[in-house]
């Protein structure tokens, strides 16, 4: 008999299992194997005492579906579990998750340091809309790690960025920027929509709040709008006096001190109790269920998204009609090494490439592909293409376009999970059409 004792190992469920099961117990739901869709606005109170207890956060439970809903709750727990977070709050869209995060953190007079390479809608929120609420932002290029430090002011309440910038594929050095944030006593918020927890868990690299547009790869099928904010639970709100609405008895919620009462889940509790009550961007139970369906196959889909993307990178890199290809898997991508460290399971399925012939060629390519869909979304199971200079970022002038890392010849590609040969054949049609206007104009 071996006298070597077996090493103790925690047997908590792992990623693929959690993506199917976390947050749900059938025996508490009539044995229903699938998560039921609780299509209801409100929930019966047992008696007046029970009602008061729910409003005072004395007990857990549901009151009204703007604040919480059991189907949405399963989604929230599932994403929290996959990210390694303590709590999550799902919202009606990715944008409302970002807005709610900022409004939970900041007050008028506050300041944020923000990566300059963001989804166009997020840029508008930070550049134009938040200033209307008295919240100002300083933009820093994602690779300018020192720049994040220099931009921090006395009234700065956090740093915000997309891990892999959209759509230029510039990666921010999350571990170092997290350290800069923490040295300044402020949290790091990361929009990890493009990665999903399958590719990267930002909490493991120092992030404090993770945000997703679930609309994209998490739901995965291009069917439903949804967003979520997830809390890491490590950030100490009480370390300084920067966050009085978290740490002091808060008039906004019956004198509650969220940090004292809820510690590692304080941010989510406040975002729900105050933010959902006052702004109300709640997710519908049907959409929550659709997203849950997508998350069930997250690993399987992400593997295929990533392998197809790497094939497309090879194909495009060797193509005569392509001037340049940007994807973190390309060896000469400036963040190639950082991507290996932060995205060990795959570098994602977003590719940007420059088409020879500039803007006109880009337009011709987009107008002629048949399989790839031309639309304003990413992270569908289907392959999607768009020309940012004339689409998502069309409100930007030349200088802003350049600052956001964009150019007129850039095509943004969200690689789907179709047969790779079919995608390549479709691109050949696009490239052929793109070469034509040049031939004509050269004559």
């Amino acid at each position, binding site marked *: 008999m071996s006298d070597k004792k077996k090493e*103790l190992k925690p047997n908590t469920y792992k990623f693929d299992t959690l993506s199917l099961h976390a947050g749900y117990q059938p025996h508490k739901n009539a044995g229903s194997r699938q998560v039921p869709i609780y299509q209801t606005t409100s929930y019966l109170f047992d008696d007046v005492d029970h009602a008061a207890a729910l409003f005072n956060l004395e007990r857990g439970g549901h009151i009204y579906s703007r604040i919480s809903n059991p189907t949405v*709750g399963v989604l929230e727990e599932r994403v929290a579990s996959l990210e390694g977070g303590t*709590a999550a*709050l799902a919202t009606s869209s990715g944008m409302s998750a970002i807005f709610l995060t900022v409004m939970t953190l900041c007050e008028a007079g506050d300041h944020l340091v923000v990566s300059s390479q963001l989804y166009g809608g997020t840029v508008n929120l930070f550049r134009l809309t938040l200033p209307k609420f008295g919240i100002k932002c300083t933009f820093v290029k994602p690779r300018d790690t020192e720049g994040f430090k220099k931009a921090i002011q006395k009234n700065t309440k956090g740093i915000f960025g997309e891990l892999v910038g959209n759509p230029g594929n510039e990666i921010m050095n999350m571990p170092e920027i997290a350290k800069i944030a923490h040295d300044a006593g402020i949290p790091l918020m990361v929009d990890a929509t493009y990665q999903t927890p399958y590719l990267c868990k930002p909490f493991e690299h120092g992030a404090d709040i993770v945000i997703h547009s679930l609309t994209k790869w998490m739901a995965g099928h291009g069917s439903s709008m949804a967003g979520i904010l997830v809390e890491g639970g490590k950030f100490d709100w009480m370390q300084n006096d920067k966050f009085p609405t978290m740490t002091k008895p808060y008039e906004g919620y019956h004198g509650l001190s969220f940090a004292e009462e809820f510690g*590692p889940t304080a941010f989510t509790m406040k975002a729900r109790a105050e933010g959902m009550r006052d702004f109300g961007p709640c997710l519908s139970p049907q959409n929550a269920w659709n997203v849950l369906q997508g998350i069930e196959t997250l690993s399987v889909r992400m593997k295929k998204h990533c392998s197809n993307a790497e094939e497309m990178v090879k194909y495009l890199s060797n193509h005569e009609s392509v001037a340049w290809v940007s994807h973190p898997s390309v060896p000469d991508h400036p963040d190639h090494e950082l991507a290996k460290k932060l995205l060990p399971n795959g570098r994602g399925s977003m590719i940007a490439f420059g088409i020879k012939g500039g803007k006109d060629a880009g337009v011709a390519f987009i107008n002629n592909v048949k399989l790839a869909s031309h639309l304003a979304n990413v992270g569908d199971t289907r392959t999607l293409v768009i020309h940012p200079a004339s689409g998502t970022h069309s409100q930007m002038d030349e200088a802003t376009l350049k600052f956001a890392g964009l150019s007129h010849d850039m095509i943004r590609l969200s690689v789907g999970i179709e047969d790779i040969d079919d995608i390549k054949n479709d691109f050949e049609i696009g490239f052929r059409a793109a070469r034509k206007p040049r031939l004509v104009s050269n004559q």
Partner: protein
Amino acid sequence: MKFKVNGHEVFASTGGRPFDKKKPLIIFVHGSGLTHMTWVLQTRYFAFHGYNALAIDLPGHGLSSGESLKSIEEMADWVNDVIDAVGHKEASLVGHSQGCLVTVECTSRYPDKIKTLSLMGGAGAIPMNPELLSLAENNDPKAVDLMMDWAHGPAGHFGGHPVPGLYHINTGTMLAKSRTIQNTLGVDFRACDNYKNGFEAAKKIKCPTLSILATDDKMCPVKEGKKLASLIDGSQVDIIDNCGHMMLLEEADRVLTVLKKFITTNYPPLSS
């Protein structure tokens, strides 16, 4: 709120209501390596219903200063000091896991002061797995991961937290990792392992006592909890199905309902 005991600052949550000397006092004592936050789904109720609900952070834990106390006996005396420090003459005690050892010992030492005792996931002794103890004493985060695995029942491993959006295994992990593991969990596990007086102490307890046990509790199995309860005169036992050691979170509502009935009957609130 913050107050001093033996020269060190102590933090105790008051469940969202200001401390009021006129109201009867309930002290909630957390388990190994954890903090006052484990009680949030019980304390707020009592605080809003005529009690001072004090969920304390043991010295060196959560937001309390000082060094962790090294024995269950010291912790028991310290809980008695807390009652004095907040200006009360008596209290009800509620303990979870290691907190049960502490409150059993405290009740046996100060029988005139303790009016009711509620034990959750308790046992007369909590001998530690030597490997787990060594991991915790060596500051290995795996100790926390193992504890979270064993402390949650099969149902708890799936989640389904009573508070929408909270994932309790990760929340527990963050609580247990919020201070240096060897100084909290390491010291606590050693104190549990060393404590041998539980059964003797139980025999001396005369106040109304409630034990809440859970069928899937691997850390303090039902059998052990029942053994302890059988030594306490007239002790009530409530057993929760399909639930693990973290019943105060896994089945927070059920626990609160049972606790509410027991405490309000045996130690009535200040009526408003």
